[in-house]
């Protein structure tokens, strides 16, 4: 199969589907479902059948981003982007007849439910990873192909030798979106250089940071995009087997991924002889049992193998000695979701977006005390102030901004004074925090920073696997000391001991979880030391 054949296939699907004049898209991602999207979808479906005046179709789609306003509905011509749609917010099943009556061009939209699409939340985003989210039906293989899906995979398989694929990814300057920011092209070429034989591709979807839901949204909105990225990676490095490691707390993402794998296999886009080539690639899902540490690559592999999810010393790195001892490529969900557009548009295209050392866009999950809670995708290098106050809409209830936590329990907080910093991997590091997977928790002036540090330390303490001493016992002691400070019973000696423990745990822990566990304490101490001192007994 080549690109022309794929275009024919998409055209055939389009013919068979008889595209409607207008689409009513209902967000069926987890957050909108939890605020009642299912009855809305049912009511719309029931009401749509008896519409005489035109051809209209109701479909469930993935995340539109503005989770705080869910359930969200978009009314638009087929394949039209979100900005051109009429978006309704906080919709209930009772609103369905009114929405359907005003769906067709020429009629007036229901103003009382309308969510303006010219607000910065929509207009300032740049969607690459999420370009299909909220537009295609995540359960539809045909929908994905009609939206231009699998073109990158077909192009790679039919026109590009594996080395060219790796070159494009290297040129793009893409860095791992899971947190570390390791250059993706370099990782791929390392695994590709290992002697031929059994190799594996793993997609890390064990998203465990509190307040982070980027991977969940991507998997729930566009699972085929991730599978396509994995298949391209497998082709580039010479692997024939892939695993998606998803946490079991994401049942909807797992369900959609399962459907996507089944449908792609049936259509010959996964499995043996993919698209009539000699390339074989099979994907299986592995469920995580709720351990944060299993997001660490060596612990993740141990868990996939069926062992106890504990990290091991590196080197050897997975690229050399991975799953069952074979060379293994592990990337994050968002990294794989970036691959297809890189192949289609060329690496240089992505390299033109973002900052000098961080290319492309980044998906962030906005959470905490912020008006527009939800999922956004912006260029690397966007200022934090723009993300929080423009796109995020600022702090609700007239409160003042205090800090934003990035990178979850491994990251740190950024205070007001540094909000004008362009966000990329390196700039955040200079502030003592990190990009992490992209969770942003905004805190208003009422937040107590000692409590914030204590919360994250409690998380790390509970999630420590217990293997190495500094992480297992150090986090306990640090949590105890933070607790003591919060109870205003601590002395200056306790604060000094806390700082010393931070240093030891950071320097000696076995894996990233332990090494970064003190970061929330260190960063709150750096910017809000007076709060600690005020609470000393």
């Amino acid at each position, binding site marked *: 199969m080549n690109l022309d054949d794929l275009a024919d296939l998409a055209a055939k699907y389009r013919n068979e589907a008889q595209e409607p004049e207008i689409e009513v898209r209902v967000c069926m991602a987890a957050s909108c479902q939890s605020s009642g999207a299912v009855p809305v979808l049912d009511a719309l479906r029931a009401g749509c059948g008896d519409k005489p005046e035109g051809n209209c179709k109701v479909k469930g789609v993935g995340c539109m981003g503005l989770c705080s306003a869910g359930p969200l509905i978009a009314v638009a011509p087929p394949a039209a982007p979100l900005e051109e749609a009429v978006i309704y917010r906080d919709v209930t099943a009772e609103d369905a007849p009114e929405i359907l009556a005003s769906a067709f061009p020429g009629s007036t939209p229901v103003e009382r439910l309308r969510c303006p699409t010219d607000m910065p939340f929509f207009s300032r985003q740049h969607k690459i990873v999420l370009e299909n989210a909220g537009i295609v039906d995540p359960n539809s293989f045909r929908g994905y192909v009609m939206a231009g899906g699998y073109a990158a995979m077909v192009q790679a398989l039919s026109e590009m030798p594996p080395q060219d694929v790796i070159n494009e990814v290297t040129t793009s300057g893409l860095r791992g979106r899971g947190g570390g920011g390791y250059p993706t092209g370099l990782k791929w070429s390392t695994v590709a250089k290992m002697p031929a034989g059994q190799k594996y591709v793993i997609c890390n979807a064990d998203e465990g940071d509190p307040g982070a839901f980027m991977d969940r949204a991507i998997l729930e909105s566009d699972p085929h995009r991730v599978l396509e990225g994995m298949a391209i990676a497998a082709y580039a490095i010479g692997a024939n087997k892939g695993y998606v490691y998803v946490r079991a707390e994401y049942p909807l993402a797992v369900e959609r991924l399962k459907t996507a794998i089944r449908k792609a296999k049936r259509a010959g886009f996964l499995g043996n002889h993919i698209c009539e080539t000699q390339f074989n690639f099979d994907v299986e899902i592995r469920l995580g049992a709720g*351990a944060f*540490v299993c997001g660490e690559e060596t612990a993740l592999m141990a868990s996939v193998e069926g062992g*106890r999810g504990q990290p*091991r*010393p590196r080197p*050897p790195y997975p690229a050399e*000695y991975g799953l069952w*001892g074979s060379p293994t490529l592990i990337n994050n969900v968002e990294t794989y979701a970036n691959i297809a557009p890189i192949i289609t548009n060329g690496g240089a295209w992505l390299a033109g977006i973002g900052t000098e050392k961080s290319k492309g866009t980044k998906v962030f999950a906005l959470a905490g005390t912020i008006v527009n809670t939800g999922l956004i995708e912006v260029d690397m290098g966007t200022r934090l102030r723009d993300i929080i106050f423009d796109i995020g809409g600022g702090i609700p209830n007239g409160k003042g901004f205090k800090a934003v936590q990035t990178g979850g329990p491994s990251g740190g907080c950024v205070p007001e004074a540094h909000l004008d910093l362009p966000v990329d991997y390196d700039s955040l590091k200079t502030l003592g925090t990190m990009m992490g997977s992209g969770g942003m928790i905004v805190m208003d002036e009422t937040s107590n920073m000692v409590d914030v540090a204590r919360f994250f330390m409690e998380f790390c*303490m*509970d*999630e*420590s*696997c*217990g*293997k*190495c*001493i*500094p992480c*297992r*016992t*150090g*986090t*306990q*002691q640090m949590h*105890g000391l933070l607790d003591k400070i919060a109870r205003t019973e601590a002395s200056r000696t306790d604060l000094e*001991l806390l700082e*010393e*423990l931070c240093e*030891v745990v950071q*320097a*000696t*822990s*076995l894996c990233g979880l332990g090494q970064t566990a003190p970061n929330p304490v260190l960063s709150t101490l750096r910017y809000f030391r007076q709060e600690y001192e005020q609470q000393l007994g």
Partner: protein
Amino acid sequence: MPLPAPRTNVRVVTLNINGQDLSAREDETVIELCRENKIPIPSLCWMDGLSVVGACRLCVVEIAGSPRLQAACSTRVREGMVVQTSTDRLRRYRRILVELLFAERNHVCSVCVSNGHCELQWLAQTCGVDHVRMPYRGVGYSLDSSHEMFRVDHNRCVLCTRCVRVCDEIEGAHTWDVMGRGSGCQVVTDLAKPWGDSGSCTSCGKCVQVCPTGALVKQGTSVGEMVKDQQFLSILARRRSNR
């Protein structure tokens, strides 16, 4: 830890540890070389003849050019490597790590069967732990005396997993394993059944001998009477590698 098996045609490298020039086989780790040359590095989980887990972090060393500290047990020697094993910083870190261990569970030497023959006690002495600055957690752990020959006291366990590895790798029974996470971690026999009911335990006692503290001991021992014999392991390991 999945290090490749030793090869027959290994190269020899030279490196520098604490200012001392040394030669080593390419497949050796830093801790093996240090032990060979009587360079002291404290360690707890590492044991000659067992696989490497790199869990206790006591053997961390500074390597020139490496931004992070590396555990000597899981770091292979390299040509031209410059290693420091005992800087002020390392000594300070090690002392805190040992203090953390003492504060974690209930290590009361004066009433312990291993008093005077305990590796944790010895580590505390060599690392200069004259007192513990952290509060003792004071959480009580259980004791399993159901086995007719041996006893496990989780209050004295440091979770080095030597017992788990010797049982799996040397005896081949895999009676021991670890359950839980964080402070809830505990070594268990079979699926957390009483040791005496274990169907897989061969009562060989290797776990008791390799245990660094008084956590695994023989029944009928009193304070200070539990002396352990770990000679067997290096003999077994040598015999295996000679084959």
